[in-house]
């Protein structure tokens, strides 16, 4: 479904990788690995369509993602290094705003449920500024509970999470794959994801 | 196909570089030729003005500079748009090369205008529509240059610059028609002069000077484009070969 071919990434004057190709089908997980600075984040941003590749192309269901535009973005859920939450808003407000933006509006009960799943039950009405590092990450991850997108691009989702939360999120990814979703994941932590097919892709050393 | 091929051929920096090198001396020669002719007409042939004295001769620099400042902006925006739309490397470089020359002419127009304004209107500067919009033009050039200079990645710099250049295009008709749309201190358009007695000589002088400026602008822009090409393509084989050859 997601096919990349001959991808090249150039940052500054440095070529991070070239001639990279992979294919990812329904229910499969692509596990991106590589040292710090090897270009994992850059690759994920290419897969989103945020960063145009220096060469090569990316196809979703046979069509290049540039051509698909909004139709591709409608099936996409990207979680980056940054949490994309507003410190002034509460977890509840953050979650509902991001859901509306993704065109999957969420009523308050469902949103509260999602937050509860991530262990934020008592904090739903506290401005995110007061949350601990891990709690902020959990707010960002709460989107995964309800958004039904087919392609998940997750850039180190487990950062700052405690072990219980890591397992929880791994479970969410597993369930997503089971439903026939696709996922691309980077992480430096050893994590056990209950997935059928896991494709490994190791990016060259920087 | 063949037409398209030609275009791509000449728009490749590699073919353009030597071609530009050959053209530059010709444009310099033309610039000198027209410049000398224009000066002769302007300073020797054209009579002294009854009201303005010798001071009016500044018109031979002022008007061509004003024209060029507007014209170059249009050309620059054109190249920038082309680069943005089709990803031609060379046309973005063209836009970048034209900007400083355009800024120079805009500055010259303002400066000569101000020099002239002191005796004519009794002030170096007034905030009228023509003067203000010409100042805006200078700001736009400076903004374009500053924006490109402050973005490290040349590809991003090109695209951002192109957007700015295109947005700024609206200013050019405003400058041109400002004297018509608002009643200003500044002189109206050419027609007024055409009615006066010495119109023909002056018009010829101005046109010659304008042509000189035009040729100068092309020559300088080509030189600058060559430099930009070398800098941007310094990692490619042909540039390395070229540089080795020059040594």
């Amino acid at each position, binding site marked *: 479904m997601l096919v990349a071919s001959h991808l090249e990434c150039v940052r500054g004057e440095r070529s991070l990788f070239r001639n990279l190709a992979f294919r990812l089908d329904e229910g499969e997980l692509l596990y991106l690995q590589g040292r710090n600075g090897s270009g994992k984040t850059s690759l994920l941003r290419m897969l*989103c*369509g*945020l*960063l*145009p590749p220096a060469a090569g192309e990316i196809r979703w269901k046979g069509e290049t993602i540039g051509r698909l535009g*909004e*139709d591709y*973005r*409608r099936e*996409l859920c*990207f979680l*980056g*290094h*940054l*949490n*994309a*939450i*507003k*410190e*002034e*808003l509460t977890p509840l*407000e953050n979650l509902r*705003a*991001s859901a*509306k*933006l*993704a*065109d999957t*509006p969420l009523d308050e009960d469902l949103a509260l449920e999602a937050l509860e799943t991530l262990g934020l039950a008592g904090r739903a009405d506290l*401005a995110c500024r007061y949350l601990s590092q891990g709690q902020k990450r959990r707010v960002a991850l709460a989107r995964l509970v309800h958004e039904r997108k087919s392609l998940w691009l997750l850039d180190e989702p487990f950062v700052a999470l405690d072990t219980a939360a890591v397992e929880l999120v791994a479970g969410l990814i597993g369930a997503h794959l089971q439903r026939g979703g696709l996922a691309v994941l980077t992480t430096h932590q050893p994590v056990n994801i209950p997935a059928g097919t896991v494709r490994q892709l190791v990016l060259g050393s920087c | 196909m063949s037409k398209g091929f030609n275009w791509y051929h000449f728009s490749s920096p590699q073919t353009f570089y030597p071609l530009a090198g050959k053209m530059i001396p010709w444009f310099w020669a033309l610039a000198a030729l027209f410049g000398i002719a224009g000066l002769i007409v302007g300073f020797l042939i054209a009579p002294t003005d009854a009201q303005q004295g010798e001071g009016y001769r500044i018109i031979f620099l002022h008007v061509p500079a004003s024209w060029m400042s507007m014209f170059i902006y249009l050309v620059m925006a054109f190249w920038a748009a082309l680069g943005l739309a089709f990803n031609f490397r060379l046309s973005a470089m063209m836009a970048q090369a034209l900007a400083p020359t355009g800024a120079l002419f805009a500055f010259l127009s303002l400066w000569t205008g101000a020099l002239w304004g002191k005796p004519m209107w009794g002030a170096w500067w007034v905030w009228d*529509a023509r003067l*203000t919009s010409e*100042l*805006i*033009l200078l*700001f*736009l050039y*400076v*903004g374009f240059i*500053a*924006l490109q200079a*402050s*973005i*490290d*990645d040349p590809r*991003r710099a090109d*695209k*951002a610059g192109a*957007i*700015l250049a*295109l*947005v*700024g295009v*609206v*200013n050019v008709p*405003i400058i041109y028609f400002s004297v018509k749309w608002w009643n200003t201190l500044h002189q109206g358009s050419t027609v007024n002069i055409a009615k006066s007695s010495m119109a023909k000589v002056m018009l010829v002088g101005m046109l010659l000077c304008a042509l000189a400026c035009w040729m100068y602008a092309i020559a300088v822009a080509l030189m600058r484009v060559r430099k930009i090409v070398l800098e941007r393509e310094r990692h490619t084989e042909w540039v390395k070969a070229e540089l080795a050859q020059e040594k």
Partner: protein
Amino acid sequence: MLNAVFSLIARDLRLGMRRQADIASVLFFFIIVVSLFPLGIGPEPDQLRRLAPGILWVAALLATMLSLPRLFADDHRDGTLEQLALSPQPLGLIVLGKVAAHWLVSGLPLTLLAPVLGLQFDLSSEALQALTLSLLIGTPALSGIGAIGAALTLGVRGGGVLLSLLILPLYIPVLIFGAGAVEATVTGVGAQAHLSLLGALTLAGVFFAPWPTAAALRIALE
């Protein structure tokens, strides 16, 4: 589709309320500039009355310009901008939403405040009306045009200055017609012509500007 845009506006407004700074600092800046000038210039009422339209419009323009760097910068820093760019709505529409929200928390309060400050300068009631009207018509253009500059300078070295450098030339016509409208009313010429030009600028600014802005944002996110 429009739904998502409205919710974006609502979110930005809620953020503005939560922070308050966004609204109040623009307003407060406006008040300061307007009230400081009499202090620096001296209190002759005749002179002040003559200067009022200019001072008020310049202050409104500066206040708007100051709030611009943050228009996209906060979203950029915390990763929200990526999410906006990845949402299934056209980015231009989203930008339009943000411009609308920006105007609601800067231009609109300025407009509402201006007649009160104008009173300070002893302006006649027609002049006050013209002032309010010109601000109401003109300030959306400031937000719209400003968005282009904010997007172009996002994350760029020397962003703040560059922004002013890029935006200012484009603001000058708004300033001239805006202050012109008030002056024309004061001198009895009638503000009609100025106001319709201002309206044209605003229409162009609000409906044309989001597209270059969206393009510039995509470039900034690369």
